[in-house]
């Protein structure tokens, strides 16, 4: 309408719309709770539409039509990357509010990752499998293991870069500046942690990245985990996850354990956790087309 041609010609479009209206939620739900395309009656038009959709999905590199579940969450970082990449720097979408930073101000837009994106045409984000294994720490320190299932990355996609993003919340109850320093260490777990019955056994890890931070600000921290992800994907090495350790410098105050958001926290519930939980982002290239070069603004069409 409105002088624009649509993707499907008139009769097919009407048929698709009618089929969508006839969709009944209970039998149409997939195992993940997502919507399922209703099975239309067989016929030449439907065969044509099915073939049409199949060819389009193949063009997009998908084997079947995605049926996202209601639990699927689109991280704000991915939305920001899309906006930055497409040159669409408009204000935030009111339908998808971003979590507030301390003080009520919205978090600053992340810097566009020019270097990782310059060699990639695909960015994927992963949440961990909630196998939050508390690792044996030193008593003063807190360590967590995150296992990200990267098996959905296609074999023909070469990962050139990967980052682990952790959110840390501002802590106000620190009387002295010197007491607010933390060191965040990110390791690759080389061997899985031994079972508790095995007794005390040192965890074998490899340090990937580290950073000294002060807990006077809320922000995301990005850690380079490219070597580990390259080993898991290209090198076919077993993926035992990443370990994150928050080391509190001596004489840190009682607020030290709340700074880095590595787990759900009660009683806040799951609302902000969906957007603030750790995020693994991979930058890869499937050998087709050019990289994600950032566009510097685009005139509105």
């Amino acid at each position, binding site marked *: 309408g409105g*002088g*624009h*041609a*649509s*993707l*499907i010609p008139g009769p097919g*479009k009407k048929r*698709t719309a009618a089929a*969508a209206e006839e969709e009944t939620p209970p039998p149409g739900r997939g195992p*993940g709770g*997502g*919507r399922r*395309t209703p099975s239309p009656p067989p016929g030449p038009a439907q065969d044509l539409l099915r073939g049409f*959709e199949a060819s389009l999905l193949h*063009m*997009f*590199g*998908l*084997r*079947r*039509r*995605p*049926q*996202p*579940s209601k*639990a*699927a969450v*689109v*991280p704000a970082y*991915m*939305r920001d*990357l*899309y906006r930055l*990449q*497409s040159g669409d720097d408009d204000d935030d979408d009111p339908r998808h509010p971003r979590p507030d930073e301390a003080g009520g101000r919205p978090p600053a837009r992340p810097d566009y990752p020019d270097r990782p994106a310059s060699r990639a*045409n*695909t*960015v*994927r*984000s*992963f949440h961990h499998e909630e196998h939050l294994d508390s690792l044996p720490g030193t008593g003063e320190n807190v360590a967590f293991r995150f296992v990200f299932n990267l098996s*959905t990355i296609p074999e023909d996609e070469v990962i050139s870069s990967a980052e682990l993003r952790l959110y840390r919340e501002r802590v106000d109850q620190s009387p002295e500046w010197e007491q607010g320093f933390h060191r965040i260490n990110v390791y690759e777990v080389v061997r899985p942690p031994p079972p508790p019955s095995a007794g005390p056994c040192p965890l074998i890890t490899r340090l990937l990245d580290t950073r000294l931070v002060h807990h006077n600000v809320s922000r995301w921290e990005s850690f380079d985990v490219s070597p580990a992800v390259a080993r898991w994907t290209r090198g076919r090495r077993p993926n035992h996850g990443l370990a994150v350790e928050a080391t509190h410098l001596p004489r840190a105050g009682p607020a030290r354990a709340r700074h880095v958001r590595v787990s759900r926290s009660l009683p806040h519930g799951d609302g902000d956790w969906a957007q603030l939980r750790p995020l693994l982002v991979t930058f890869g290239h499937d050998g*087709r*087309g*050019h*990289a*994600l070069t950032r566009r510097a603004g685009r005139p509105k*069409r």
Partner: protein
Amino acid sequence: SPKRPPSPPHRGPPRPRKKGKSCRRHALYVDFSDVGWNDWIVAPPGYQAFYCHGDCPFPLADHLNSTNHAIVQTLVNSVNASIPRACCVPTELSAISMLYLDEYDKVVLKNYQEMVVEGCGCR
């Protein structure tokens, strides 16, 4: 012929301008909600893909962005209609980025090549 006097400039009725009929780019908005794909494509909701349509008449004007072969083919068509005219096709395309949820509920941002017609020509 050099022995003939030069012919006067064309004074006949002006040729009707075929504005809009020659090869050019036309609007074509692809709306993902029209095919029910807006449940897994997060952004954009749709995009201007454009398409090429129009005539490639003899002689091919410069703005029709033709190739030497298209000029020859059009020339041959002018004397032998069994040879088709050159076709109005995209000569320059650009990419778009799409943010979507894949089959495994993972969020993907991907750059797709040659999705938008930037220029049309007779080829």
